[in-house]
């Protein structure tokens, strides 16, 4: 009896496994569940509710579930999940990561829906990032430039004013750090490479440029090195942030008073002003004291900052592609996109640009967005990001390493990946 029982157990286990493999497919179109992956906390709650409510209203019986993912390791997770049988239906992806997936055929071809989704009203740079071989795979979701947040009282106490050039900005940071021992005049943890890009670009350098079929990494060129040396100057003289930390939770230092200025995506304003009893607490009492401006360029005006933002596409393996495209249409509708604008992110449509408002943040966003730039447009660029080459480089720069030698080594690694 006992033996039979064990055999039966084994058989049952095998059957269960077989059941797993065959289940999940061929569910009816009605009563389907659409899974939407949104990344990070950038998308405001109001927008999430709008999406779920509108979708479920338009498709009675079907449900839409938003699954929040983290930016860390996103490329890895998308590679495994989009290729599996349990793929999410709609996924957000960083604009610089999009081409890794559009070129691999991970997304559904959306070319026929281009006009319906917004057509030429969509942010052109992001449409380009989401297209491959003249086909349109991933629509723009939103754009957000980096802004400088600062404590008004600290700047005033040091007798400084909002800087108008990059050199002034660096000098201000150093002066603040010198006047406030133990505090960061410009908070800059070593792994944060996004903030280093404007220094390279403003000095006339590039990360990598196309050279025929190949890519030529330029970090060790004289212009880029001049920028990297400025980065090192800020990291060592103005920043008291850990030299090897990442840039998550910038609000912690700002709220406990150890960060006097920091450069971060525009939505960080809401992290700083989050209620004190929230899951990630902020300091709403600092609202009056929180100032913001666009990073100034080397010759004045706004600097060329990194054009951060996201694209959003439908998985090629989605079991309900029609419903997924419907969800995408809601996401790109004026109603949904307006919520982005009201929360300090640049909407995916040019016609909604004025929803960002006219306050200080909005002006800074407009100034920064007007001069934003992208990372090298190679499908392999996502691999450079995922390999952590730039994080490692700037941790070493923050430690005070020899910039020229570090840049040469990083160039070699970047070229090895881009030209693989």
């Amino acid at each position, binding site marked *: 009896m006992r033996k039979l029982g064990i055999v039966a157990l084994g058989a049952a286990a095998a059957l269960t496994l077989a059941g797993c493999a065959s289940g999940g497919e061929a569910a009816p179109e009605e009563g389907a569940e659409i899974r939407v992956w949104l990344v990070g906390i950038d998308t405001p709650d109001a927008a999430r509710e709008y999406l779920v409510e509108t979708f479920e209203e338009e498709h009675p019986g079907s449900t839409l579930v938003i699954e929040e993912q983290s930016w860390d390791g996103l490329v890895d997770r998308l590679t495994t999940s989009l290729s599996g049988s349990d793929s999410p239906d709609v996924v957000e992806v960083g604009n610089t990561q999009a081409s890794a997936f559009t070129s691999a055929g991970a997304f559904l071809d959306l070319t026929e829906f281009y006009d319906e989704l917004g057509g030429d009203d969509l942010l052109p740079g992001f449409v380009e990032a989401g297209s491959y071989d003249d086909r349109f795979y991933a629509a723009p979701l939103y754009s957000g430039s980096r802004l400088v947040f600062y404590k008004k009282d600290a700047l005033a106490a040091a007798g400084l004013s909002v800087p108008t050039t990059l050199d002034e900005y660096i000098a201000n940071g150093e002066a603040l750090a010198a006047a406030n021992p133990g505090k960061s005049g410009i908070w800059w943890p070593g792994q944060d490479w996004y903030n280093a890009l404007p220094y390279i670009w403003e000095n006339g350098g590039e990360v990598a440029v196309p050279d025929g079929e190949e890519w030529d990494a330029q970090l060790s060129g004289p212009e880029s090195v001049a920028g990297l040396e400025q980065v090192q100057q800020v990291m060592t003289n103005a920043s008291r942030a850990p030299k090897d930390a990442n840039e998550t939770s910038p609000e912690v230092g700002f709220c406990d008073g150890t960060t006097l200025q920091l450069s971060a995506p525009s939505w960080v304003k809401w992290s700083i002003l989050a209620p004190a009893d929230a899951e990630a607490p902020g300091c709403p009492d600092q609202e009056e004291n929180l100032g913001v401006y666009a990073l100034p360029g080397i010759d004045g005006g706004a600097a060329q900052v990194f054009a951060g933002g996201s694209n959003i596409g439908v998985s090629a393996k989605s079991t309900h592609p029609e419903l997924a495209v419907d969800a995408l249409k809601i996401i790109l509708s004026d109603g949904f996109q307006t919520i982005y604008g009201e929360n300090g992110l640049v909407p995916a449509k040019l016609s909604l640009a004025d929803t960002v408002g006219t306050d200080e943040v909005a002006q800074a966003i407009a100034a920064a967005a007007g001069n934003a730039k992208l990372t090298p447009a190679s499908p392999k660029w996502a691999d450079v990001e995922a390999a952590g080459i730039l994080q490692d480089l700037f*941790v070493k720069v923050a430690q005070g390493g020899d910039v020229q030698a570090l840049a040469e080594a990083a160039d070699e690694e970047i070229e090895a990946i881009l030209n693989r």
Partner: protein
Amino acid sequence: MTTVDTAGPDLAPGAGEGRRPTPPRPTRASRSRSRRGGLTPYALLTPALIVLALIVGWPLVQLVVTSFQEFGRAQVFGAPPAWVWFENYADVLTDPVFHGVLLRSLAFAAACVVTTMLFGTLVALMMTRLTKFFRILLSIGMLLAWAMPALTATVVWGWMFDTAYGVVNHVLVNWFGLAEYFQHSWLIDPLSFFVVAGLIIVWGAVPFVAFTLYAGLTQVPDEVLEAAQLDGAGGVARFRLIVFPYLKPIFLIVTILQIIWDLRVFTQIFALQDIGGIRALTSTLGVYIYQTSIAGGDFGHGGATAVITAILLMSISVFYIRHLAKEEEL
């Protein structure tokens, strides 16, 4: 049962009228049992083997196949892969980065295994001396440490060693007056990174070793230990000459498990790298394979590295088992 049945009549051959026709019956029974025994084990194993072949064997075959191909992200989504045969292996074996990763992993695993076994043994020995109350208290503490998922443990340890807000720096600066530990980064120097990583791994592994060895220690006969003590053997001599030989099989299996677990360590290193440190200087085999294949989208080279790692792990285990088995014979 069989031996008792057959031995019974043998012991009483003189009891004439007691000769029941029992002796042949057990023989028949045992023969038929052994005949059935010839197939039953296999029949019992089959379902498990099928499941194993499906969930372990098939991916393994796929891994080997992938390692012979040029397999990028496009292939993951359905493009046909090109066969490159041993090119991936040649690339990996001649790559200085891989050599660095391999040496780092071996050295780190060796340090972790030695430390874990040492502390595990000491804790197990201590458990035999403790009163019941403290033994249970210690067991509960260790069970909690053991039950803690590796990722959770790493995040919590990461907070303790945090540069700006960590309790370790706070205590060193404010209680011991070591001002140089103000904002000290524990992860930026690779050696220091591995000390922290090793601490997390050893902390998580000691309970298993301690529990297993403690279970073994309770089986060492007290009389032998007492006799040795009367003969004047000290604690170290008793452990070396009596306890260790008794527990050798347990030491053997636990050490092999530790070697395998520590060589393929992933979670702790991967999570710590995100908290701080320099990835290129701290990657171990598991993390390197992940970075190459899944993050970097180069499944061909990643697969080759994984196959080489698997072969390496197996040969270390086989070498170790044979070495110890030979020692046993002498």
